[in-house]
């Protein structure tokens, strides 16, 4: 059963309900989310420059599927299910490598980097075997913002409208995300957080700033307006540029100057912080001199891996300019957020939270996420939310 939500709060009602606690603990709901959300939509899986040479491959998990992402010799980057089409053994073992071919270790069925079956013991005596039909099963792939995005759906949502269009629309034409030239930035730092919390708690946390003044002292020092509880993400998906404090020189842990600003940002984007959620698993934060990208990989109903990248101009990376204070600010924000999420997760199965919690007005836009989430879970009877 789905609880119908009122479009507008009752007079005098500041609080709106969240999903029930079980939405964050029920393995059946998590399985439905994997099937109907993560295995249907575009997922941002890795940086394209992390597999820079032909033959470089990495393994990633999307939903319940293990994938190989490989840079081919002539066809750019490709993604395949890590499943041998002969008898099903994992083709790639380990997390990453560099290979001239993708070869199953069981019977040596051997696939080109481009996926087709090129060799197997006695294959030449089986001329009727179709090399493509028995090649590795491909997965839809796009590159955007310097990242590899994949979609497991047979008919993926249109990337240009569903992902690209939505992000561009939310940022607005003047404050275009394109101004940051994210695809030309290089990785300055990456950190991986193993968070003992449901992925939705992390999204909800990222969408609001009601918690900022309490758990993010450094962030609120840099962006004093966060003390009003309003986040960069607002109602109807609108993105608000949150201003730096008067004495603040840069988006750093102590408010000191950062590095050179990205050259093409609009005047409105100077001294401001923007944040956006690209559902279902990406957060993009932009500040004048760097961009922070989070990718989430839900592991179970109570565990989520979050990878956070800090991206800077190539000259900043090549000249080894100091980025530590920039990185430290959002690293602390991450640690503070994920600690809060981990202290929230155990309560999701408490009798005291069985009916869910409440959203204050500055959190009401999180309902848009909850509505989206309910609509995505096609088998609504599965979800007792």
């Amino acid at each position, binding site marked *: 059963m789905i609880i119908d939500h009122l479009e507008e709060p009752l007079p005098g009602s500041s609080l709106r309900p969240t999903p029930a606690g079980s939405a964050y603990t029920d393995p059946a709901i998590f399985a439905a989310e994997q099937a109907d959300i993560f295995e249907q939509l575009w997922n941002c899986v890795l940086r394209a420059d992390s597999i820079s040479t032909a033959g470089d491959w990495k393994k990633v998990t999307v939903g319940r599927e293990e994938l190989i992402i490989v840079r081919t010799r002539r066809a750019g980057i490709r993604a395949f299910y890590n499943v041998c089409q002969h008898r099903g053994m994992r083709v790639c073992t380990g997390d990453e490598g560099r290979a001239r071919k993708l*070869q199953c270790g069981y019977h040596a069925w051997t696939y080109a980097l481009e996926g087709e079956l090129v*060799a*197997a013991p006695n294959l030449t005596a089986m001329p009727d075997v179709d090399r493509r039909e028995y090649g590795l099963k491909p997965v839809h792939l796009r590159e955007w913002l310097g990242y590899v995005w994949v979609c497991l759906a047979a008919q993926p949502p249109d990337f240009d409208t569903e992902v690209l269009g939505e992000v561009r629309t939310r940022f607005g034409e003047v404050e275009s995300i394109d101004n940051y030239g994210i695809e030309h930035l290089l990785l300055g730092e990456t950190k991986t957080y193993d968070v003992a919390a449901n992925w939705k708690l992390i999204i909800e946390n990222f969408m609001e700033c009601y918690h900022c003044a309490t758990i993010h002292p450094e962030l609120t020092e840099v962006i004093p307006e966060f003390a009003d509880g309003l986040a960069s993400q607002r109602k109807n998906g609108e993105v608000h540029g949150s201003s730096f404090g008067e004495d603040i020189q840069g988006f750093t842990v102590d408010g000191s100057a950062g590095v050179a600003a990205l050259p093409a940002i609009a005047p409105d984007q100077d001294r401001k912080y923007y944040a956006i959620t690209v559902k279902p698993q990406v957060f993009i934060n932009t500040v004048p001199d760097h961009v922070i990208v989070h990718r989430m990989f839900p592991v179970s109903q109570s565990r989520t891996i979050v990878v956070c990248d800090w991206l800077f101009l190539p000259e900043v990376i090549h000249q080894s300019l100091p980025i530590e204070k920039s990185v430290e600010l959002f690293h602390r924000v991450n640690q503070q957020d994920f600690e809060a999420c981990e202290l929230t997760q155990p309560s999701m199965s408490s009798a005291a939270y069985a009916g869910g919690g409440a959203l204050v007005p500055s959190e009401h836009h999180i309902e848009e996420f909850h509505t989206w989430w309910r609509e995505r879970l096609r088998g609504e009877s599965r979800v007792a939310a």
Partner: protein
Amino acid sequence: MVMLVRWAVTSTDMSLKVCSIDDLRPGEGLRIDSINPPIAVFLTEDGEVYAIDDTCTHQDASLSAGWVEDCRVECPLHESTFSLVTGQVDQPPAKKGVRTHQVHVSGGAVYVELSTAAPNLPPGVIVA
């Protein structure tokens, strides 16, 4: 399927036209299975054309599907590599080299003069 045409290149050599130079891609091999046992023709990144027996001497696998680097091809199944110039093998599991065949490129066509030596074929593979 590449058509096999007998072609006299000189008055003394009898060569076979096996493919067009345009059929070849740099760094890759082409299996010619109209010849028995099949041969593999390779165009290196440097633009040289070589022909060797296509079948690995260890197990039935097509060397044309192997990775070409530094004038050697690595069998796609295991780790042995064969010289495109001499046919010699560098390491197990293959123990014997493959035959090499003389190549002439003329007028955009690739001609091969087959070795008259006995091929080193793996277990289970016989010359029809």
